[in-house]
């Protein structure tokens, strides 16, 4: 049996039962879209369309429309790429690493976090395609024989490692996410099938009866979710295999998720550019990625829990725990900043010292200040329990963190490049409308996909929440307290006796 300590706060509140979980989570999938959803989706699609104009222009005219210049060959494009890849770290971390650590609170947020991961990686990938200028030749990034018109890729380049790392990561994340979805899709399928069985269309039906029945029947859901759930029947053997697959995928994803941002950091750190070449980059980038990913998960979950009324599943306890991860990773990032700064001085390498002083006090000081404030200072507010457990604070700070993490990448990329060894080629970067527009495109893509996901798929993993329900609800906590009281009473009587 599972024993839960009385110091653990409940993860499912208000005495929800197994059936309540099914009802609460299937509701938004089965019901007609709400007005709030329609408005939000319309805004996302509009954003995507506006961004698409910028993207089409970028491809039509070439990437010369960006603000890049002779000195700064990478700016918003790579900043946005790294930013999105970083955000794409939380999902697999929550589903894989927290599964290995047996953290029960992950069950309420893993589904949405994994979906977010996939969408964020797609957004990141879109910047690579944008930067290629000729997206129809994207397959040249793969090691294809020269007869395909491509050139054999340079395996010494970390950019090629990126191709493998990110595509593997995307594949495994999709598989992980989808495998987790199957039991829930089967639940939705079964519920739709029941509507067909309960409302059979009989030749004897009157017109009104038929109309009433048709309103209740959901044949398209039964068919679609039937296809998607791969004939899942929920037998004990199937569940055993499901758990095995989850564990194996978690084992595979854990090194994978760490490797992705490690290799992204190699894009910079294998070079000899001051400010880029430093050995701490791999773990520091990974910490930063988890930091921003958790912030994005919080932003999305805080909205989702209100819109879909999921407060009993995504509780304040969940939010507090995630805020603790934010403060941990944010502080790791802070230590990395300080370490870099210290070693830039300690190394005695003039270029290195200059790069860092220029970062903090040069023309881009405001970007550096934004990065330090948002990433290092603002998460420290989460040391206060009331702030950790406040929805408003959490929401604001989760956005602040992602602003900060965007600036971090901007600082690393642009300030390291804009003043190179030749003062005659020093330059500043000014984004054009196309830089901004392409960024807008990625937001449109991300939110369009996320809202589609939130409407048509269950945002919480019902099956997994049910597995932890008995050991994490309020009753479990009360039982644990009661058990201790009884034991203590028994000991007392024994002593007296």
């Amino acid at each position: 049996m599972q024993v839960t300590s009385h110091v653990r706060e409940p993860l499912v509140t208000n005495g929800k039962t197994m059936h309540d979980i099914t009802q609460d989570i299937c509701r938004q999938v089965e019901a007609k879209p709400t007005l709030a959803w329609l408005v939000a989706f319309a805004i996302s699609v509009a954003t995507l369309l506006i961004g698409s104009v910028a993207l089409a222009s970028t491809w039509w005219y070439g990437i010369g429309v960006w603000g890049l210049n002779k000195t700064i060959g990478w700016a918003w494009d790579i900043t946005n790429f790294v930013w999105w890849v970083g955000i794409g770290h939380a999902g697999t971390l929550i589903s894989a690493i927290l599964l290995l650590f047996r953290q029960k609170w992950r069950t309420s947020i893993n589904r949405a976090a994994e979906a977010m991961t996939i969408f964020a990686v797609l957004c990141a990938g879109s910047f690579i395609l944008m930067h290629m200028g000729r997206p129809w030749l994207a397959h040249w990034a793969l090691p294809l024989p020269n007869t395909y018109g491509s050139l054999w890729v340079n395996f010494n380049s970390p950019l090629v490692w990126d191709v493998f790392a990110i595509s593997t990561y995307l594949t495994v994340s999709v598989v992980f996410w989808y495998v987790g979805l199957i039991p829930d899709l089967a639940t939705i399928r079964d519920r739709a099938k029941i509507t067909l069985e309960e409302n059979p269309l009989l030749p004897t039906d009157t017109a009104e009866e038929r109309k009433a029945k048709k309103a209740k029947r959901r044949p398209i859901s039964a068919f679609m979710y039937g296809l998607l759930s791969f004939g899942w029947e929920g037998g004990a053997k199937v569940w055993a295999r499901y758990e095995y697959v989850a564990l194996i995928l978690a084992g595979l994803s854990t090194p994978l998720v760490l490797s992705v941002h490690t290799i992204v950091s190699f894009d910079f750190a294998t070079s000899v550019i001051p400010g880029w070449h430093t050995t701490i980059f791999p773990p520091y980038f990974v910490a930063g990625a988890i930091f921003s990913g958790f912030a994005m998960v919080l932003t999305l979950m805080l909205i989702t829990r209100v819109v879909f009324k999921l407060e009993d599943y995504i509780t304040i306890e969940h939010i507090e725990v995630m805020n603790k991860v934010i403060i941990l990773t944010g502080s790791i990032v802070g230590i990395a900043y300080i370490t870099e700064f210290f070693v830039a001085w300690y190394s005695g390498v003039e270029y290195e010292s200059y790069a860092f002083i220029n970062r903090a006090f040069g023309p881009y000081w405001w970007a550096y200040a934004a990065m330090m404030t948002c990433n290092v200072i603002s998460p420290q507010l989460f040391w206060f329990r009331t702030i950790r457990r406040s929805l408003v604070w959490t929401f604001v700070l989760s956005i602040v963190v992602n602003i900060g993490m965007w600036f971090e990448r901007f600082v690393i990329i642009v300030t390291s490049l804009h003043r190179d060894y030749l003062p005659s080629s020093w330059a500043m970067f000014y984004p054009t409308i196309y830089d901004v527009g392409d960024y807008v495109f990625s937001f449109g893509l991300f939110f369009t996909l996320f809202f589609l996901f939130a409407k048509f798929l269950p945002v919480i993993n019902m099956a997994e929440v049910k597995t932890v329900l008995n050991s994490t609800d309020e009753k479990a906590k009360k039982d644990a307290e009661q058990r201790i009281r009884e034991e203590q009473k028994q000991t007392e009587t024994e002593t007296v006796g």
Partner: protein
Amino acid sequence: MADHIQYNLEERYEFTPKLRKQLLMVIGIGLLLLVAGAVFLALDTGGGHHGGGEHHGGGHHEGGGGGEEHGYNWMTRIWANFWLNGIFFTEIAVMGVLFLAIQYLAKAGWSASFLRIPTAFGNFLPFTGGVLLIVFLFANHDLFHWTHSSLYDKAGEEYDSIIANKAPFFFWPFESGSFPVFWLARFVLYFVLWYWLYTLIKKQHLAEDNIENRLNVKHYDKATVYSAIFIVIFAVTSSTSAWDWVMSIDTHWFSTMFGWYMFASGWVSGLAVITLAVIYLKEQGYLKMVNENHLHDLGKFMFAFSIFWTYIWFSQFLLIYYANMAEETIYFYERLYGYDGIYSPMLVLNLIINFVFPFLFLMTRDAKRKAIFLKVAAWGILIGHYLDFFVMIMPGTVKENGGFFLVEIGTLLMFIGGFVLVFANTLSKYGLIPKNHPMLEESLHHSI
């Protein structure tokens, strides 16, 4: 609960006079070997510098710099060994405190039943702190190139502008090359802070044994607060201490990763010692409630953090190799090809023992659930990480005069004996099971 198995939650560890005698003998043998080794070294190199002639003739290495001008003394190898073991065992001791702090902060349940074991590690900190301080005060010129005042004399022949640039890090606010007050202040601060917070956490952890009502989590909450303070301080000081104590030996060299690299090495060593201690106590009939499920988790920890260490080691190596900048590559160049190549096999062995071995050996579930496998793995990891610290410290201190023989074995035995002595003595002072720990019930029912 009907299925409740009654464990003896009042059990205490008894530090037998027999074990005490054995440990004192280990220390004694260590001392004998050390003395014998010292005699050999003195006879071997007493007349002059071993291979010194060719060295001076051929000019000196970058890393050695002015150090070699001061000559190699056979005592250096002994000091270096004390420094190496002092650092290695400091890391292990402080990682015990870190393990305890992490369990509180992460609200871990599985580990509650054996928490008293890492709790007993921290008491070794004053000993290693004392040893390291004495070694530094007597042998700073032998171990730390940057302590030579001639490096900072602009007019002098040995002036080294790179090291002079770093001087404030060691000597501030005093004059460069004088008394390293800043460095020493930090040294003292690390030990004082670590030990102080350790006692604070331990006090709350132990006070829990005397509470009347087990629903009262006052001590648990306080221990959590102290753990948070410890972890914040340790997050910074683990890196800065690594720069101070080890990275500054190779004074010219720098790497931003170094602090985390040394942390990774120390942390996995600490986990290995915790595992070994749990298994040995179980073998003596203690800790009946710790079963293969707990061992499995300890095994996972050793497995995971062996890979983590490899990740950090490899990232540091790859980036330095890839950028191929002379000021960075010198570190690995010296270890692979320098000093007659004596450190080269150790560097390779280091990777095999610390990565390939635990990776393959602890891969399967069954291996992590069998005490004998874990013992082999933990000893392997400890040998491997001793070697890792050896490769960090020795090339910069004893240079081509390094080796592994009587002095090394003797010093290591003395430290092992001392650590176990302090550990066992501390452990016998309080109950072996945190009987009122709010997570204990979870740990007793741990099943994976």
